């Protein structure tokens, strides 16, 4: 289980996050809604270990991981603009995390190919990522995140760069795959329909504080 305890953070002199408490269970998808600039992405960065909180702590499976560097957490973070590596091809993007886990290159690439096969992207394995459509790039980003068997999945507005039709179909596909992986998932979005379609539970970030929605 992922737990946030009394997290606070400032933006300049302004309190951005105040006394945030939240828990996400294994296999659960929790959506966090909020307007632009409300601090959703900052909170996600704190959970991922990319930014230290001003106060409070992050716990995972009963252990305080607030000071743990991001590469040791195995929390996969997916970005709004996918953040694929432009200098690598599709297969090597997916294999990136496995190679960092000290798996041999050949084995990592074979697993990446199998994952791409599963997502129907095997034909693009040797292509550079910019050859792919937006939806394909997002699926590659999901493959890159899931292949490392992350302990937590963090999604930062994952569909906002896509058009409406693609968004709807990808939501269903993502939900199926995330549930199959059984990882606690925190989904940040400003779209309530998206939250309802994907999440088991939702909270809203208002004036730096979390309110339970459903």
């Amino acid at each position, binding site marked *: 289980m992922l737990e946030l305890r009394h997290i606070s953070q400032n933006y300049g002199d302004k309190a951005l996050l105040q006394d945030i408490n939240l828990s996400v269970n294994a296999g659960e998808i929790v959506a966090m809604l909020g307007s632009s600039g409300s601090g959703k992405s900052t909170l996600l*960065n704190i959970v*991922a*270990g*990319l930014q*230290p*909180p*001003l*106060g*409070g*702590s992050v716990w995972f499976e009963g252990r305080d991981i*607030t*000071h743990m*560097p*991001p*590469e*040791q*957490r*195995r*929390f*996969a*973070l997916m*970005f709004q*603009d996918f*953040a*694929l*590596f*432009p*200098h690598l091809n599709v297969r090597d993007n997916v294999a*990136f*995390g496995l190679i*960092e*886990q000290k798996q041999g290159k050949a084995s990592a690439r074979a697993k990446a190919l199998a994952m791409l096969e599963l997502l129907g992207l095997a034909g693009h394995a040797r292509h*550079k990522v*910019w050859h792919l459509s937006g939806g394909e790039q997002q699926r590659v980003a999901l493959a*890159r*995140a899931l292949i*490392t068997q992350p302990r937590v999945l*963090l999604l930062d507005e994952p569909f906002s760069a896509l058009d409406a039709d693609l968004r709807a179909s990808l939501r269903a596909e993502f939900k199926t795959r995330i549930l199959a992986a059984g990882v606690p998932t925190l989904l940040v979005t400003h779209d309530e329909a998206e939250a309802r379609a994907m999440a088991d539970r939702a909270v809203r970030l208002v004036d730096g504080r979390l309110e339970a929605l459903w």
Partner: protein
Amino acid sequence: MTGSASRSVRGAGSRISLWLALLPAAALLLLLIAPLGRLAVTGFTGEASWPGAASSSWTLWTPWQDDYLRWRVLWSLAQAAITCVLAFVLGLPLAWVLARFDFAGRALVLRLLMLPFVVPTLVAALGVLALWGPRGLLSGWLGVNLQDTPWLLLYGNLFFNLCLVVRAGVDALGQVNARQVAAARSLGATPWRAFWRIEWPAIAPWLMSSLCLVFLYCFSGFGLALVLGGQRFATVEVEIYTLVAHELQLGQASVLALWMLVLTGSIALLYALLEKRLAAPSRIEPVLRQAPQGVAQWLALLAALAVLFFICALPVLAIVWRAVQAGWATWATLLDAEVRAALWNTLRFSATALALATLLGVLHALAAQRSVPWRAAAFLPFVVSPVTVAFGLLLLYPGWTASLPLLLAAYAVLAYPFVAKAMAAGLDSLPPQVLHAARTLGASPQRTFWRVTLPLLRPALRRGMAFAAATALGEFAVTLFLSRPEWSTLTTLIYQRLGHPGAASLDQAFVLACLLMLLALLAFLLIEWPVAERAAPSPSLASAVGVGVLRHA
């Protein structure tokens, strides 16, 4: 994490920056700041001369009281100002034509505009001589003699600087928002009015900033003024060189150098203030380019290309023409031991300087990520002329004046800002998400640097290194001051040949210039080599031009 923990993370980052900055800081301090300090002290206190030289007593105000020196200073300022006006008057319409018209070969023309940035100053000077000098291509044909007139120097200045203003203008016009122009047109503005009321305010700061650089370059230029200025139209930099190398008057030279430092520092400050105001709008819809319509637009395009050819391409072609005309006997002199030694020196000095410059530049850029003043420090070697640097080194380390390590270190300090600036621009354009993605996928900061940051910065690094290589290849002023005869390079050899009387020596200079240009061209190809893969966060063309133009400043 508590506030103190957060502070400790920031503290660790600052400590790393401090370590990274150590080597470039030491280089700047020992090879630039300390020599300039020594020069300033000598300038204030007056006396310093080689043993045996006639003593003289100059005050700080002598350059403004003496007619001859006042002429030198005023002419240096005037030729820079005239070049700015000419570059602006010609460059703005050329930039507009290249930015707004679509035509076959447009991309190639824009690429070729980078060429002057890598042509060594001495080669450019020879190009102007090949056109307008004795037995020149155009002077012979038109029957005019421009020797001992200011036109040769102004033409040489334009060769470098017109391209700079045009490239800056094209980039700036690409930042104009098409919707704003459309709105102005729909509100009744003619194309002419829409240009002055909408496009001009958007591009003016960019052009002013580039003109500031043009002024800085022309004012502190040495090679062009030395070869093309003659007795009457040489600049202060040439005067400093003459006082040091021929008249052995270090005290007098340091007074002049101090004034140069004050004046170039003021211009550099103005440039920094202007550049601070430049901010590219994040999301704009650029004005679409159109194929020229009608006779007038085609004529405008052809005229623009003709002007560019005449000013920026013809001097380079003229060197080739003069070298070909020189005949086989002159080409055979390339095999002489003296030329082979100069070529070998050029290559080994450039390679060593490039390796040092790359190390210093990368460290400087990485350290500068967290410090604005440190980032500004990378500009220091740009705003101080090589003559001033060399002279300062001569004053501070008199016992090391003929030492190879000092010569190579001076080369590296003059070249490394190109690497630092290109890398800093590359680092700025790296999307943080990509680096965050690597970290969350299990890569440590060091692994992220090797597997993601460095591969993505490769184009920027290559560009910076290519300009640094071009700088080292064409280095002239520092070599003249600090070199020994046996360390002669291609540039100093060309200069020697120019000093020898007779047509044969001039022909040899053209052949040597051809060889040096070939080396510079290799650097140019390295810069503009079409990249097969699109590494997304590469610095913009504008930043490439920014880096490139500083090569001559």
